[in-house]
């Protein structure tokens, strides 16, 4: 291995000399404390190293040692339910370890702690697949199964880029990740395979074929599923100023999405937000399976005060783990909160490397890095047999300075993502949550998923959805007029539009993440709510066209009006007949109004 010496230290960047032979992106150990670092530039015999731990106290002359391999993650059973730092050190283990060695400091992440990502001593029950001695295998082929959590059956696969002939496969039984479970012969040499393997984080894991996304990723968030849907294998972004609801939306996605596995990356955000997930998820049930949410979740935490270089690495660590579960044939959702902090880490390191800055100090490769990251999303036919289809859906939060969407991270991310959930400070100030602006947002998957909705939920989904959107767009135009001249001058049809738009905003788009009923809306309930509002609208419009004032249509509802608006949090997903009752009563009220008015006329 290469062994050199520190020649300069500036913040998270260390320059070492005598490093001839070190590889680009090789992981190295820096100084007496053996801090983890990664080579990001090589110049002559000098290596520029970004260090993943605090460099306080490092001195020129201390040793830097190569490890011979690039920064990699350990992939195998035991990932689910765990929380890691930005370079895959399990945080609970660090706390355990420190409570023995330096109890007073055990609440902190001290540097130089060496722990392996997956437990070495835990035994997993391995059930071999059909594979027999003599079979030719290659990357992705199924070797066997391990029940990793109640929720997830872990598929033990031949690692990518590995092939040979099976010379031994372990019988069913209990094994740790360091016990061999198979042997293959390659060119006469024997190679052992384990329940786990390592993969370099900056290299996408291979797949067979990229497929178009086709199914929606149901999230239970009405404005998302209905107006701006996400697809399994799709990409999306949530930009928004502080306090607009990025994190709550991300937590919602992580909680309720119809994904099999969720990667939650807290990238340069608050410590308490990770704690919230850690404390809450084990007690919450996955709405699709009824099992504790933590059993399908992996957390990566590099909070804002943790070393900045590890923040840069954290999203690669996350996406590599996501691809690993994709390769098993699962639908994986990765949320990263916030990619802006990742971009800032990139900027800080580029600044220390004295690279030529482009816009706002960001390096010129910001766009290509973002593109590479989002390209690792997708729905794929995986490598290996039996045939599997898996997906990685990626959603990134973006934190634009001053809430200004024209800044570099927002504008570049827009180019590489297909769903844009724009959070709006004005909506957040009036506590309209989720503060997703329905005029600015878009989804490229609205048509893609309509077939699924028609087949699985309601054939009229698209029709209702489009009508809701039309009413909101019309309201937006009318607001311009109202701001100038008030509502009185509008014609009755337009007044009705304003009335119904308010109903849509209050009774459908608004969704309280902290209300036990409102927080998750089943697809069926979403359709029922739309139907309730749209059928009321259509009937009322008919009356208005017959000369009945819009105000009267609303008055005819009496208390029903409040009931319609409160249906989102009053009526649970399993009592949908109550919405149908409400709809009937509303239509009856209009019918009564009609006969009264016609009689009166």
């Amino acid at each position, binding site marked *: 291995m290469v062994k050199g010496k520190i020649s300069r*230290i500036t913040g998270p960047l260390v320059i070492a000399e005598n490093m001839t032979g070190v590889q680009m992106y090789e992981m190295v150990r820096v100084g007496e404390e053996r801090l983890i670092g990664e080579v990001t530039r090589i110049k002559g015999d000098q290596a520029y190293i970004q260090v993943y731990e605090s460099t306080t*106290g490092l001195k*020129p*002359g201390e040793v830097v040692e190569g490890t011979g391999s690039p920064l990699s993650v350990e992939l195998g059973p035991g990932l689910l339910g765990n929380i890691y730092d930005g370079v895959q050190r399990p945080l609970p283990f660090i706390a355990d370890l420190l409570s023995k060695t330096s109890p007073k400091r055990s609440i902190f992440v001290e540097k130089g702690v060496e722990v392996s990502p997956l437990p070495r001593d835990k035994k997993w029950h391995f059930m071999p697949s059909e594979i027999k001695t003599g079979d030719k295998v290659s990357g992705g082929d199924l070797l066997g199964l391990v029940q990793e959590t109640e929720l997830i059956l872990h598929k033990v696969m031949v690692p990518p880029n590995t092939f040979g002939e099976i010379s031994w496969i372990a019988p069913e039984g209990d094994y740790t990740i360091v016990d061999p479970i198979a042997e293959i012969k390659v060119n006469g040499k024997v190679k052992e395979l384990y329940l786990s393997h390592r993969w370099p984080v900056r290299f996408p894991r291979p797949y067979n074929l990229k497929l178009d996304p086709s199914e929606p990723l149901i999230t239970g968030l009405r404005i998302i599923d209905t107006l701006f849907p996400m697809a399994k294998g799709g990409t999306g972004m949530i930009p928004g100023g502080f306090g607009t609801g990025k994190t709550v939306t991300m937590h919602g996605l992580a909680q309720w999405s119809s994904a099999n596995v969720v990667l939650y990356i807290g990238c*340069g955000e608050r410590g308490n937000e990770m704690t919230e997930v850690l404390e809450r998820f084990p007690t919450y049930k996955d709405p699709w399976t009824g099992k504790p949410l933590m059993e399908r979740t992996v957390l990566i935490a590099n*909070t804002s*005060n943790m070393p900045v270089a590890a923040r840069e690495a954290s999203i690669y660590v996350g996406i590599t783990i996501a691809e690993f579960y994709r390769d098993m044939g699962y639908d994986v959702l990765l949320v990263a909160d916030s990619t802006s902090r990742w971009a800032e880490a990139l900027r800080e390191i580029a600044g220390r490397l004295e690279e030529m800055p482009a816009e706002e100090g960001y390096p010129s490769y910001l766009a290509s890095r973002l593109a590479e990251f989002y390209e690792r999303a997708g729905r794929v036919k995986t490598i290996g047999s039996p045939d599997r289809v898996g997906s990685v859906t990626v959603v990134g939060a973006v934190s634009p300075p001053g809430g200004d969407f024209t800044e570099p991270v927002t504008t570049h991310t827009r180019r590489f993502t297909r769903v844009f959930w724009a959070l709006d400070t004005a909506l957040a100030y009036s506590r309209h949550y989720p503060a997703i602006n329905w005029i600015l947002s878009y989804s490229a998957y609205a048509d893609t998923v309509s077939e699924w909705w028609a087949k699985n939920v309601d054939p009229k989904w698209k029709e209702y959805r489009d009508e809701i959107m039309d009413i909101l767009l019309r309201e937006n135009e009318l607001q311009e007029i109202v701001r100038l001249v008030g509502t009185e001058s509008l014609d009755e049809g337009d007044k009705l539009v304003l009335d119904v738009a308010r109903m849509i905003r209050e009774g459908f788009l608004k969704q309280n993440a902290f209300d036990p009923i409102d927080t998750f809306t089943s697809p069926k309930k979403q359709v029922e709510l739309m139907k309730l509002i749209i059928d009321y609208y259509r009937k009322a419009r008919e009356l208005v066209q017959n000369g009945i004032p819009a105000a009267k249509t609303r008055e005819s509802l009496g208390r029903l009006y409040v009931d319609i608006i409160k249906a989102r949090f009053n009526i649970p997903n399993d009592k949908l007949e109550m919405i149908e009752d409400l709809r009937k009563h509303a239509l009856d009220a209009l019918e009564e109004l009609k006969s009264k008015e016609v009689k009166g006329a």
Partner: protein
Amino acid sequence: MSSLYGIREYSKIVEIKGPLIVVEGVSKASYDEIVEVELSDGTKRRGRVLDVSKNVAVVQVFEGTTGITTTGTRVRFLGRPLELPVSEDMLGRIFNGLGEPIDNGPEIVAEEKYDINGSPINPAVRAYPEDFIQTGISAIDGMNTLVRGQKLPIFSGSGLPHNILAAQIARQATVKGEGEEFGVVFAAIGIKYDDYIFFKKFFEETGALNRVAMFVNLADEPAMIRLVTPRVALTLAEYLAYEKDLHILVILTDMTNYAEALREISSSREEVPGRQGYPGYMYSDLASIYERAGRVHGKKGSITQIPILTMPNDDITHPIPDLTGYITEGQIVLSRDLYNKGIYPPINVLMSLSRLMKEGIGPGKTRDDHAQVSDQLYASYSRGVDLRSLAAVVGEESLSETDRKYLKFADLFEKKFLTQGVRENRSIENTLDLAWDILSDLPEEELTNIKEEMIKKYHPKYKK
């Protein structure tokens, strides 16, 4: 003396720029190491290493470089990062911005010494803050609830009463069912002398001085020390909270001065700037201060942080409030408009936020109607405020009857709910009843954020 171990002295200064000196011929200086600079006249200054190569060290001098010469100056590398000796006896004492006593009190006998930079708290050992702190201020307790272990800044403007508000919070803050009072760690960061005296007097008058530790760097003192002061204060706070089981309230004022010092050092180093000349790493740097708050499993104490900052030109999108808001768990925003209307506290509730409110309120903590009442106040007040600007254009007459009720509600809200005395300490029940009182002025069917059962239970119409 063992503490002298590792001390090295050099005298070859090759460059002086801004607060920085470049020292050559240095062997084995370490990054972030503390140095002592002795001028030719024998005066001493402190500094720290910002950049170090085999032979050269860049040193930031806290007290500035005025008067330093390239010859005759001696630079001593002390072999350790800046540390604070900590002790429980520091409560009741006054220190300078570097943590040295300035009150002529007895010597502090240190129990431990800690690196002032601290270490990040392991997210896996944090305990989610959830204990309601009653501040007695309706706009905070009712709508932007503070909880123990939260970091909740006050975004102010020059001349607005942020000091009075912070003092009122410090005086009135209590946790229901606990007699225990907060210990206070107060950091004055580049503030004016009269602001400092305001707080000092206030602590004296309330008899709180013996549970307050003050770290003071005033406006006319060296700016570079401001980079150290909040860290020194938080190092003591961490010690008191996590080793001495105390509940600590930390007041940092004014973080705008801190950020300005950071910009100064960054431009002296000729770093590539981010927005408005502030360094690209300002977010991470501020986070290394603000994140030093919270509760952890297995420890009784906690740190609640109330940083105060003045928004340059009252602009909330300025990098200092902006980056702060991205890190803290909400913000209390003061408004010049309300202040000019004579309203105290002039809190713009719509722009304010407490992100940790939801876990701190509700049955058993405050009251079962709290969350819904708060949502309703927000929704109705913001509608009222919107309609105010509409009414200004089209005239009040052309608004519907309901809309006019909203206008009236917005006024009631500001006059009855928001407005209160500097010494008025409202219980949470009081605050919520007051809210129902003004909400009952709106037609009942407008209360769309409140569930039926709560209306039946608390609406004045049904209560009587």
